[in-house]
């Protein structure tokens, strides 16, 4: 049977680390799809086609989970047995939450700024920089991998969820501004 019990890192034959070589991951993804993809089984029997479909689906899911730093961190924490609070209630960092509120307000005000595009670009860059900082922090926390550091990584993951959401909102405002030209 296509080994669905393998974890995603094992599937790609890569070490279960937060830091990984993105281009190597992409290369292995393409190699795997060349083997399992339904297009390779267009003339095969129904059963082969079903197995191929399931395998290709799993390879896609694995790739999605590993290529994005936030999803990779979540997946790694899961492998290490750390439960993440889906409702994000346990984030205990008042300064971060205050900063989030301020950014959110700034974003809501963007359309009324003297130069909306300029202001939005500034915010996008600021949020992007904050995400990069969290990714770097995750790298350090996973490198150590002590229980205390993993608990800290779970907090970092929650912050990244906030930041990614904010970034997505900023981008959709950006799209609106561009479309109104």
């Amino acid at each position, binding site marked *: *049977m*296509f*080994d669905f019990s393998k974890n995603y890192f094992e599937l*790609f*034959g*890569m*070490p279960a*680390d937060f*830091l*990984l*070589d*993105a281009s*190597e991951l*992409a*290369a*292995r993804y*393409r*190699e*795997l*799809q*060349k*083997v*399992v*993809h*339904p*297009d*390779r089984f*267009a*003339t*095969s*029997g*129904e*059963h*082969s086609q079903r*197995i*191929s*479909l399931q*395998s*290709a*689906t799993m390879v*896609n*899911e694995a*790739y*999605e989970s590993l290529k994005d*730093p936030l999803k990779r961190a979540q997946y790694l924490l899961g492998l290490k047995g750390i439960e993440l609070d889906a409702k994000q209630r346990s984030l205990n960092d008042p300064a971060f939450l205050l900063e989030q509120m301020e950014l959110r307000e700034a974003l809501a005000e963007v359309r009324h700024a003297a130069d909306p595009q300029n202001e939005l670009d500034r915010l996008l860059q600021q949020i992007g920089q904050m995400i*990069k900082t969290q*990714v*770097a922090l995750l*790298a350090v926390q996973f490198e150590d991998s002590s229980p205390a550091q993993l608990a800290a990584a779970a907090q970092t993951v929650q912050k990244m969820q906030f930041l990614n959401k904010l970034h997505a909102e900023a*981008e959709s405002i*950006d*799209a609106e501004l*561009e*479309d109104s030209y």
Partner: protein
Amino acid sequence: MALLQIAEPGQTAAPHQHRLAAGIDLGTTNSLVATVRSGQAETLPDEQGRHLLPSVVRYTPAGIEVGEAARLAAAGDPLNTISSAKRLIGRGIGDVKSLGTELPYEFVNADSAVPRIRTVAGDVTPIEVSAEILKVLGLRAQETLGGDLVGVVITVPAYFDDAQRQATKDAARLSGLHVYRLLNEPTAAAVAYGLDRGADGVHAIYDLGGGTFDVSVLRLNKGVFEVMATGGDSALGGDDFDAVIAAWLLAQAGLSADTDRGTLRHVLDQARAAKEDLATHPRVNVTLSLPQGGDWQGELSRAQLAEMLDPLIRKTINTCRRVLRDAGVRADEIEDVVMVGGSTRTLRVREMVGEFFGREPLVDIDPDRVVAIGAAIQADVLAGNKPDEDMLLLDVNPLSLGIETMGGLTERIIPRNTTIPVARAQEFTTFKDGQTAMAVHVVQGERELVSDCRSLARFELRGIPPMVAGAARIRVTFSVDADGLLHVEAKEQTSGASASVEVKPSYGLTDHEISGMLQASLDHARDDMDLRRLVEERVEAQRVIEALNAALASDGDELLSAAERADVEQALRHLTATANDSQDPREVEAAIKRLEKHCEFYVERRMNSGIRKAMAGHRVDEFARDDGPEAD
């Protein structure tokens, strides 16, 4: 139908026997069929040397006309001549009405969710109309190639939704063609451009046809075409250009927009001719025959045309911008921009696209034929004619898929531009104490409100054990296959008692309707149906036998013990004998199922062995930590 060939057990039919396969571009205005011969992909002409088949079907008491003859008869017999099946396919009565009054057909109010058009030869659905076009193209390919087609690849706009894809596949089923794959038109064009040959990098395909617009951004890497994002508008194309020019001409000539149908058709024809002439001339003269007698004469320049078309073209540029954003690349990172579709002949389109991407777009391959050629290349690969070919296409779903939750809001389950095949699940719960049923409404689209999205299907999950509100765990699983088709399943988890439902699109034909149409087209008689099924099952049996023989030849010794191999071969002989001797399609079908069940372990071993080999070139310790942090 060619005679069924079944090799003696142990003797594989010629290992690299060429299988006849074709690519079909089922277009709004014109359709084409192409195939790979002697390594060269080419579109196939009819007996008069014409490659383009107008996508027009005319129903007469004497029979059905398809193509040029039907197109020429359209003006004289508008009610029985269907020329926009692609605009109607996979759409409901409501959608069709909102397309406006420009369609001259008489729609029948029937029980079926699929619109039916009344003709002198009976009521027909857009699916049946498309099937007629496919039949003609399939026949053209078989006559040219001198044999039965084993499979075809049919192209669809990347932006087609699930219902439109399902309907296209149903049309193929009605036409008797075996569909290997539905392929997105821009992806097909990328293949045709042979961008895999040393052109690794990120490319954009801009596809503006008669009635649809698509843009895809894809990354090419060692033969793998990875679509990063796609977008478009399934109701924007060259026909809209013509309409804008025609409106201008009407105003200039002092005619009202609700003048008679004949005059409107005439003005529209002149508008199209002027647009086409402006591709080669800086200005053109236009003459309109007026309904009250006499002529109107005027002049149209490229600058004037640009002014009229710019708002429409700008809409496509905005879509390009959004797709780039989804793909996460900037316009200056795009290496080539490929132009596809007849409407990219309009110079103003090329100019604006070139300006946006900052480079001259590629127009080397005939924009009308490029999609069919790409489909033919893919069909050839899927048929297994190029066992050493590295080419692989990884496509995405164009629109987000979700379900309706409380308050008419959309809960997204699979976001747009997710690589397919994909499966995602999400858990939902009950709203009321003791609730034993749940309505699941499947929608497609990007908007928050369900009412702004496209409704794909509704079904009810029943038999939920009564529990307090919020205690039930209903897992809804969405899976999208390699054709971009959606399957939805819902299961209640906590009780162990589970129910599941397969979803059929709201605007599709039911299996019952399809088999009814197949039967009718075969001039009835159950015997005919059985005979047809027997032939189909035998072809399927041959496919399975061939595939298994090829597998045994390549790795049977490596992966199977002598006893296992003998066992597999025994089962193989049994199917061969049944397929040859039995006159009962059900018996052949059962024998195929038995063989597949029997060889399950072998199929799985092959898959795992393939994965091991693919990863064997790499070693885990290649990736030392000091490779540095990833680029993100």
